[in-house]
Structure formats: structure tokens, C-alpha cells
């Protein structure tokens, strides 16, 4: 037995939808006949339903509830459930995408900040070494070179270097060059501001042998490129 009415060219849902609106019925006579029969049955059941309700008030046993359009109610219920759920899913996805973008931007900013810190250290160290190489002012003390300013800069850079040693290096090579620069800065910062020319020459030689200035400059450029 098939519980659903079969009407040519119409789905059962559509048939129920237009059942009480004959102006929407299809032109097909067979379909119209089927719909008319269905409408008759529907009206009869409706009348019986009203009678049953009257009986119910008198204490007679209540017949099974007859729903006029059970599929419509189901659809409405589905829509009521699906709409907020759908909104929630779409909203959650949008929020997750924003959170992901925010995390990515924060990570980019963190990496950029780190690279710029290292790049600035390398740049300033390179400048200091060049300055130490070319600037040979005499100190007030006889036969000594005035290295007071370079020594101050070395002290400040040494402090930065200690800070960088506490951080993850942007590349293993960067850490190696930092350690070399650190050793050189340490030597300079521990020297007398009026430096013995022989000692100054030693430090120049050391920087030159290890190519410290060029290495620092190269890494500074590389990191600046990555941080842009």
C-alpha cells in the first residue's frame, strides 16, 4: 500500500500545497481528477476531525491527531533548527578565519621585530668596526689613541648582544657571527679609553682577520630583506 497520493507531474508535497487552491492546479485533467478526489477525502477527514474534537469534550475516546500539512510543519521545524545552526557555523568559520589572520599577523610582527633587532645589532657593530679602523685620534695621554667613544658604543652593543644571546637566532649563522662580534666588543669595552696603539692595532687585525665588519653588514642586509 502506498500512503502518498500519486498525481502525474506533481510531487506529494506540491500536491498538498496546492490542494485547497484549485487555481494553481495543473492543466492536466488526470492530475486535476486526482487532486479533486484528494480534496474530497481531505475535506471529509477534516469534518471528521472537527466531530472528533466535539466528541473529545464529551469524554469520548480521542482519535489520532490529524495534521493538515505534516511536511510543512516538518519543514518549518527544520528551518527553525537549521537557520540558527547555519548562521552559527558561518559565523564561527568567519571568526576562526579572523583569529587565524590575527595569529599570522602577530607572528609576522614578532618575526619582523626579531629580525630588525638582529639587523640593527649587525649594522651598528659593522659601523663601529669601520669607525675603529679609520678613526685614529690621539688621546690626551701621550702615545695613545682616543677610543672613549668607541668604547661607549661597544658597551651598549655588548648589552644588546647579551639580550640577543637570550633569544632564538633568526639563523644559526647569525648566532655564530654574533658570538664573534660579542668577543670583539668585549675586548674593546674592557680596554682603557686611551688605548695603546699596539693594542688598537691588535683589535683592528682581529676584526680584519675574521672579516667581522663585512660579515655583520652582509647579515644586516639579509635580515632587513627578510623583515620588510
Amino acid at each position, binding site marked *: 500500500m502506498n500512503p502518498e497520493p500519486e498525481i502525474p507531474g506533481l510531487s506529494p508535497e506540491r500536491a498538498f500545497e496546492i490542494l485547497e487552491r484549485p487555481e494553481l492546479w495543473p492543466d492536466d485533467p488526470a492530475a486535476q481528477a486526482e487532486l479533486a478526489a484528494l480534496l474530497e477525502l481531505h475535506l471529509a477527514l477534516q469534518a471528521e476531525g472537527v466531530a472528533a474534537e466535539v466528541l473529545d469534550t464529551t469524554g469520548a475516546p480521542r482519535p489520532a491527531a490529524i495534521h493538515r500539512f505534516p511536511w510543512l510543519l516538518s519543514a518549518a521545524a527544520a528551518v527553525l533548527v537549521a537557520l540558527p545552526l547555519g548562521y552559527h557555523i558561518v559565523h564561527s568559520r568567519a571568526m576562526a578565519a579572523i583569529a587565524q589572520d590575527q595569529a599570522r*599577523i602577530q607572528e609576522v610582527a*614578532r618575526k619582523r621585530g626579531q629580525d630588525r633587532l638582529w639587523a640593527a645589532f649587525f649594522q651598528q657593530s659593522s659601523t663601529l668596526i669601520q669607525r675603529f679602523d679609520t678613526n685614529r685620534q690621539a688621546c690626551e695621554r701621550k702615545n695613545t689613541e682616543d677610543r672613549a667613544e668607541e668604547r661607549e658604543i661597544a658597551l*651598549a652593543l655588548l648589552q644588546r648582544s647579551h*639580550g640577543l644571546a*637570550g633569544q632564538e637566532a633568526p639563523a644559526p649563522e647569525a648566532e655564530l657571527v654574533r658570538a664573534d662580534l660579542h*668577543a670583539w666588543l668585549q675586548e674593546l669595552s674592557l680596554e682603557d679609553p686611551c688605548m695603546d696603539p699596539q693594542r688598537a692595532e691588535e683589535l683592528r687585525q682581529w676584526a680584519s682577520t675574521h672579516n667581522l665588519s663585512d660579515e655583520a653588514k652582509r647579515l644586516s642586509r639579509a635580515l632587513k630583506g627578510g623583515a*620588510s
Partner: protein
Amino acid sequence: MTPTLLVLALAANPGPLPEPMPLAAVKEDAGEGLLREAKNLRYSGRWFEAAVCYRRFLAEYGGSTRVPEARFWLAATLESDQRWDEAAAAYSEFLDRHPDQRQLGKEAKLNRIRCWGIRQGQAPQATPGLAAALGDPVAEIRVAAALQLAKVGDARSVPVLRQGLELPGSADACSLALLNLGVKPAAVASPKGRFLVIRIREAGKTDTITIRLALSLARAVVNYLSDAQIREARAKGVDLEGLTDQAANLPKGSVLLSVDDKKSSVEVTVE
């Protein structure tokens, strides 16, 4: 001239002989020579031999005024040779024996922190040493220890890192370390209750990303800007170094800067 003839010639014309050097001076000279040799070896990266020289100097010239220096450079040489545990022990010995050496002492503490930092979780004294350094009277040393502990996610570093946000030379490093620990780098709140809001709109995206920064961290704003955006801001006359002061003096809701490049547009407001 044969040796016999030379002796005869000297005997015939003795002349003034140089005065013999006092034994102490000879010894001092020999010590200096050893230190010089150690330094030259160090400069040429021959760390192992340099360390041997310094050890020999310490063994043979224990009474020299240059012992503290030698002890420091021995530790530094071991550090350069990546013998971290030996270096940390040598720095500790230097600090124990020469507590009066101020400048070398600070360097020794900072270098020892680096050695311990590398050996965290491997050498038994490393982590307790770093934890103890969090209580050092010198802020720079506390911060250095906190940065090393933060590397392995040790939460004991957080209070010191927060203090470090107030130190000009350490603020950036501490801020990054806190971010790596997953802690918002919030320093002491602004007296005016202000903060900066960075709104970033990336090309091809509909949503604007909003990031809030404490006023004391205004310097970090530049990390959200590309080099091109920094140039644009400077061209517009924005003082990126003095953002904190500017933000503190502007009324709430003011736009501090607004810059664009191909990838994004960034607006920073005071709120």
C-alpha cells in the same frame, strides 16, 4: 769567530756588563709572555691551546696582579670553545675568587648565564643557576636569566620579563620572549588608561584585524608595519621613535598614523 777566540776577546776588553735582572722581574716578564701567547692563540681561534696557556699562567704565577684577568679570559676562552660546563664553572670560580672586579664581574655573570642557558635541562647546575640569577641585584643580569629561562618556556621568567619591558635596552627582547611564552606583553598600565589600537586591512580580505597594545609598548607598533609603510609614515612626519609620548598627549580617538602599501593598510588610533 770561534768560541775560544770570543772568550779571549771578551777577557781582553771586558767593558761594562749589563746588570743582572732581579729574579722577580724575570718571572714577571715570563708571565707576561705567557699571557701574550695565550691572547694571540685566542685571537687566532686556537681555543684549546689558549686555555692551556691561561691555566699554566694561573698555576705558575698565582701571585701576579694579572690573575683576575687571566681567570676571566680562561673562562671566556672555554666559552668560545663551546665547553659550556667548564666555562660556567670557570666563570663561577672567577666570581668567587675576585668579587671586587666590578666590570669583569658583570660580564662574567652575563656570560655564565649564556652558558647555563645553552645547557638547560642537560647540566644539573644550569637551571637552578638561572633561577637564582632572577634575584640578582642588577636588572640586566635578571633580565638575561629570564630570557634564557623563557627560551624553554619556564614561567618563572614572566615577572622579570615584565619588569624588563620598562628597561629601554631590553624592552623589545622581553616583549618577544613574553609573546613566545604566550603571555600578553602588558607592562605597567598607562596612567591615563590609554592603549593603541592597530587596525590592519589586508589586500583581498574583507575583515579588518584589530590588535590592541598597551601604551608602554607603543614602540612595537613598527613591527606591524612593513619597511615601505615605515618610510611612508616618516615621509608624513610621524615620529616613530616617540610614539609613546605622542599617544599619551593626543585625545582619545585620535589617529596616530595611517599608512598603506600593496599588501595592507594600517591605521593606529589612541583609545
